[in-house]
């Protein structure tokens, strides 16, 4: 795989300005939210509180970045919540029974389980000709059923897990918790892959126009496998992080999480049509959703509003995308190559 440094076409420049605007919007929203919350209760900015928000956002970010890779290709992966549960329980059991397992091995094991799940999704999508929405809706049930069958009523509790494994949640480098480091690494890697590598360009092309991508000789089949494997791997990785963070894993871990993951990606500017969006956007979306969740109790707003706000945010996000796309199209038609 080689890095291709193509000169940016005019297309790219207006497109990147749009995505930048989206990310800027989220950042502004975040800052405003934090400012309001902190003025209501300064402790919202305490080290402990920030740490909690970041830890919570890390897991969501990892999954949202994986979702981004899939959604860019005009697919969707609804099975991520179940994959997270499967991986969390499998790795939890592994670490419980072999207390000497290094954390790195646990992370790899989780990612491996996720890759297997992702590849099954991809094979059904690619070779079965079944739409991703249907496949991953099916595997959402199937993988969850698998966890329940395996776990039964069992639960892995914090006292059964070795200290060293759980310490991964507390430890960190230069004061940044490991979970956050993992999320940052994942987001950066995905950004570079999507932006600077041929594969990334192909994924965008597939999402923009599947037919055209095929005619242009892009290996759509292979790329579909890679995209779903990536989403699965990151969901599996998220499962290990979940086990580390919460210390208790039961069969229900990650139930319903897929909705939040898709929401984070959509709010972060990843279009469900495919063909556009960035990993950083998804990460910012994840951070925004988590911050909202943490800010509500501090602002003494009923927790029940959280879901309502998430839903409204999704609608606002896709509405804005649509608006921007329309204006961009109009600007292009007028012969302008930039959106001013």
């Amino acid at each position: 795989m080689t890095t291709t440094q193509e000169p940016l076409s005019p297309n790219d420049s207006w497109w990147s300005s749009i995505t930048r605007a989206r990310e800027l919007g989220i950042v502004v929203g975040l800052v405003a939210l934090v400012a309001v919350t902190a003025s209501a209760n300064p402790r919202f900015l305490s080290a402990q509180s920030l740490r909690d928000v970041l830890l919570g956002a890390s897991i969501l970010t990892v999954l949202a970045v994986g979702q981004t890779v899939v959604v860019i290709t005009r697919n969707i992966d609804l099975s991520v919540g179940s994959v997270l549960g499967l991986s969390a329980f499998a790795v939890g059991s592994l670490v419980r029974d072999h207390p000497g397992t290094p954390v790195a091995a646990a992370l790899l094991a989780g990612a491996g389980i996720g890759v297997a799940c992702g590849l099954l999704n991809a094979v059904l999508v690619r070779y079965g000709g079944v739409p991703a929405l249907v496949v991953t809706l099916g595997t959402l049930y199937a993988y969850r059923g698998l966890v329940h069958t395996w776990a039964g009523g069992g639960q892995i509790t914090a006292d059964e897990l070795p200290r060293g494994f759980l310490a991964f949640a507390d430890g960190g480098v230069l004061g940044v918790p490991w979970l956050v480091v993992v999320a940052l690494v994942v987001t950066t890697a995905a950004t570079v892959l999507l932006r600077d590598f041929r594969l990334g360009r192909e994924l965008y092309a597939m999402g923009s126009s599947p037919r055209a991508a095929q005619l242009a000789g892009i290996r759509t089949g292979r790329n579909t496998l890679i995209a779903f494997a990536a989403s699965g791997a990151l969901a599996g990785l998220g499962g290990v992080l979940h086990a580390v963070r919460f210390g208790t894993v039961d069969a229900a871990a990650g139930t319903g999480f897929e909705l939040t993951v898709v929401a984070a990606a959509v709010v972060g500017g990843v279009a469900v049509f495919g063909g556009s969006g960035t990993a950083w956007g998804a990460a910012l979306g994840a951070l925004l959703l988590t911050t909202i969740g943490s800010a509500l109790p501090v602002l003494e707003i009923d927790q029940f509003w959280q879901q309502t706000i998430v839903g409204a945010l999704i609608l606002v996000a896709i509405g804005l995308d649509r608006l921007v796309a329309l204006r961009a199209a109009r600007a292009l038609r007028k012969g302008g190559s930039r959106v001013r």
Partner: protein
Amino acid sequence: MSARRLLGWDAAIIVVALLAVALSSVLVDGFGTTRNAGYLVLDLLPIALLALPMTFVVITGEIDLSVASTLGLTSAVLGALWDAGLPIETIMPLCVLLGALLGAVNGLFVTVFTLPSLAVTIGTMALFRGLAFVVLGDSAVADYPASFTGWVTGSSGGVPNVLLPLALLAIAFTVVLHATPVGRAVYAAGAGQEAARFSGVRVDRLKFWLYVTSGAVAGLAGVLWTLRYSSARADNGAGLELAVVAAVLLGGVSIFGGKGAMPGVLAGVLLLGTLQSALRLSDVTNEALTIVTGGLLVVSVLLPNLLRAATRRRAGPASARPGAPTTTP
């Protein structure tokens, strides 16, 4: 919809569903009794109701994932209004109307703002469920008049009472889909937006009213759900949307739009319900039920594809459209 298709997947799914019923009656203790049939109808009621308009929506190439949340919100509002002392006879039509309004919200976003229905209804799914909790918080409202709750759970002459409205609606939806200009417009819109527009179908208006219908039916399902369980709760019907989509796809409706038939969908609902009921009676765990549901869903779409692939070389499905994520094969 061609006659050949009706003889294809739809016929197959109907045969499979009837086989499942027959086999369960023979093999499973307690299945097939009057009592069991009554419970089966009650358990299938919400899924069957929601599947009727969902079939129309999916055939036009769109999707509505917000139906279960609409059910939850109408249930919560029903509870709140009942608590406020309104008569139940007033609340029920109001709830159906509320459902229609919520459907109109979806329709507005999808048709007027031309947004992808998958993203819109994922958004409203969260929005409506959140509002349900805002309305009712975490309390449950009970004490509905026994004459109403009794009617919903009761039966007369061995026939469950709720079968009547369900059958009427099912017949109405089937007739509209297969024997009226509206139905033909639905298929045309699903087969190709532009072509349908040129042939005089008002695609956007059609879709708008389909969403309104979907919402209204979900509102009705919310009322029946609340009365059946004598409990209005904000989390009523959580997760039901997946079961409804599964039933519709199992019934042979194509997620790409343009294909599908109501008899197949009703058979799909019956098959899912029969399997669940029979497995539960045989003490098969809940886990197996989820695996079966998921597996059936994938197989139901995979199988026709494989059969087609086996009979002829495929040139590839029509290009994807928003709302039906796909890859090129």
